[in-house]
């Protein structure tokens, strides 16, 4: 299998830097997602790994060997496209056979490999169908099978689930992830959907404006976002203004924390960055970390301005008496109605001290 190393990779389009000197090391068998809004350079990065786009600067190494000057057809990659890109004039078997023919695999081996992979994507009985005789989900799986049957070094997926409906998308997330684990192939997955990136990946690379904002495990990205941009992109977040207090923290809280005064009182907050006492900072507070209680039970006081019921959770909008607005998510077992006055409690470990955006 293959380790991929991207070093100071840059792509300029007429002076504009679409990808600006990014470096990522992808371990053998790792599932890594490039996550970011459209235009952040994630797809361009993927195309450079695939060889469809020439790198302006930097290196891409497969197992230590620089492939920047290797044409796409010689890189030995499997790629799944957003629109599947199945060959419409070929049956499922012919689609899968294409890559094997290019590798001059003998017919008997070709057929057994195709049968094996079709089985793996649960399309055993569909060999002789044409792509337009298949549903979106089936086409997706054929595309996946076509990329895997050549046993490539690396699997690249470009927003493969974007054209599926919500239910199928969730099924396919699990399906692709399980398949990837079973095959153990190094995988790079491009998406703008943070839930997709988090559920599937070993590590997520968050990109903005051609640069990497943060690389980390999904929990790292979600719970300890590098800055405001990342925090806002990977889920909903409340921003709470605060001021750094001086003095060291003792006891269980330990080092690596800062004391911050905010509307929720004085809290010891986790942080990756150092701030001088007196500095104005922004704390992130995830909606699901907040606890609501009926009025006058301590904490910050406020009023429910809106309530959205969605089955497994309820979303609340709370207007605090101090003027801030909070977004709160709770399980539906508490009955608080619109217009009710509430006490808002936020545990110290629900806060995270954001670094300044780069």
């Amino acid at each position, binding site marked *: 299998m293959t380790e991929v190393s991207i070093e100071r990779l840059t792509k300029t389009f007429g002076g504009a830097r679409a990808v600006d000197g990014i470096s990522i090391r992808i371990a053998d068998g790792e599932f890594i997602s490039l996550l970011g809004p459209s235009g952040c350079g994630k797809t361009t990065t993927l195309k450079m790994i695939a060889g469809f786009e020439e790198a302006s600067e930097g290196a891409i190494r497969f197992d230590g060997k620089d492939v920047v000057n290797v044409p796409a*057809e010689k890189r030995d990659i499997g790629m799944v496209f957003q629109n599947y890109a*199945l*060959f419409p004039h070929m049956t499922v078997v012919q689609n899968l056979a*294409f890559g094997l023919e290019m590798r001059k695999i003998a017919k008997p081996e070709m057929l057994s490999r195709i049968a094996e992979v079709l089985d793996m994507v649960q399309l055993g009985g569909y060999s002789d169908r044409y792509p337009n*005789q298949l549903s979106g989900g089936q086409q997706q799986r054929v595309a996946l099978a076509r990329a895997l049957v050549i046993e490539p070094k690396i699997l690249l997926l470009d927003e493969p689930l974007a054209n599926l409906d919500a239910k199928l998308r969730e099924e396919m997330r699990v399906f692709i992830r399980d398949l990837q684990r079973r095959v153990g192939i190094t995988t790079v997955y491009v998406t703008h959907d943070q839930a997709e990136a988090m559920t599937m990946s070993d590590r997520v690379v968050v990109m903005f404006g051609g640069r990497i904002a943060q690389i980390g495990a999904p929990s790292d990205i979600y719970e300890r976002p590098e800055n405001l941009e990342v925090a806002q992109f990977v889920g909903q977040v409340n921003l709470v203004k605060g001021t750094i207090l001086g003095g060291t923290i003792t006891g269980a809280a330990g080092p690596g924390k800062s004391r911050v005064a905010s509307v929720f009182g004085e809290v010891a907050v986790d942080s990756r960055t150092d701030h001088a006492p007196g500095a104005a900072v922004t704390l992130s507070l995830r909606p699901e970390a907040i606890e609501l209680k009926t009025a006058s039970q301590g904490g910050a006081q406020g009023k429910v301005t809106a309530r959205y019921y969605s089955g497994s959770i309820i979303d609340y909008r709370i207007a605090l008496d101090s003027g801030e607005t909070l977004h709160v998510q709770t399980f539906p077992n508490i009955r608080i109605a619109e217009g009710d006055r509430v006490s808002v409690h936020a545990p110290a470990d629900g806060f995270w001290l954001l670094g300044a955006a780069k």
Partner: protein
Amino acid sequence: MTATRRKGFGPLILIAPAAVLLGVFLVLPYLNIVVMSFRMPGQGTPYGPGFTTGNYTKFFADSFYLLQVANTLWIGLITTALCLVVGFPVAWQLARGNMRFRALAYGLVLSPLLVGIVIRSYGWTILLGNNGLINRTLTGMGLIDRPLPLMYNALGIVIALVHVFLPFMILPIMAAIQGVDPSLESAARSLGASRFTAFRRIVLPLCTPGIQAGCILVFVLSLSAYVTPSLIGGLRVKTMAVTVVDALIDTFQWPWGSALALMLSVTGALCVVIFARLTRMKWKVART
């Protein structure tokens, strides 16, 4: 019941105007030509009383006319092949090139059709003649001693026909290429196909319908072209269309001219059928 009836008549009403036009101005005249081709030649009149197969026996007995049909088909074939070779790269650029290039190229491609056919053909005589621009320039530069024979031969006709029929080749092919998703080529290349293999195995089969349409259009138009061959071919090289018009208008032999016209149509149609057979797509995509 009403619903099904409405469904049945709707399309009929929509195609009615075209059907009437074709019926009155194509099918009926054609039938008239078929009947005319079996009439007796007349003396001082377009045709005489009674019927005969003599016009056809005359045609098949005289190798001059068979040769002329072969000549006409050959010119049509060469014109079609050249249009395909010259037109395909242009169609590709129009379909896949950048926008600014496209607007300009589109205008250039259509430009031959914006000039009247007679004017355009005279234009070619100015360029191609023994005393024309091309020959004078070449002799002036000392590259040739004698003028190249560019006019009054098949070469001149082919040059002029390729020029005017190029748009009919380019436009259908361009439309077909536009219908082929560029990511299919990327997919083929990711699977290990070179650019050329990706083109041959994926793009080419998918734009075959456009190539077929373009080839048939150009071929049929070349066979039936009259003004260009008559002005550039002159008296030396005659295509069937020119001979047919001679027979009908100059010598006033309607039955003979009709028979000639029908032989041209039949051989042309035969060529188209054979071509369509040979290039038939081996895949049929069922629509469900």
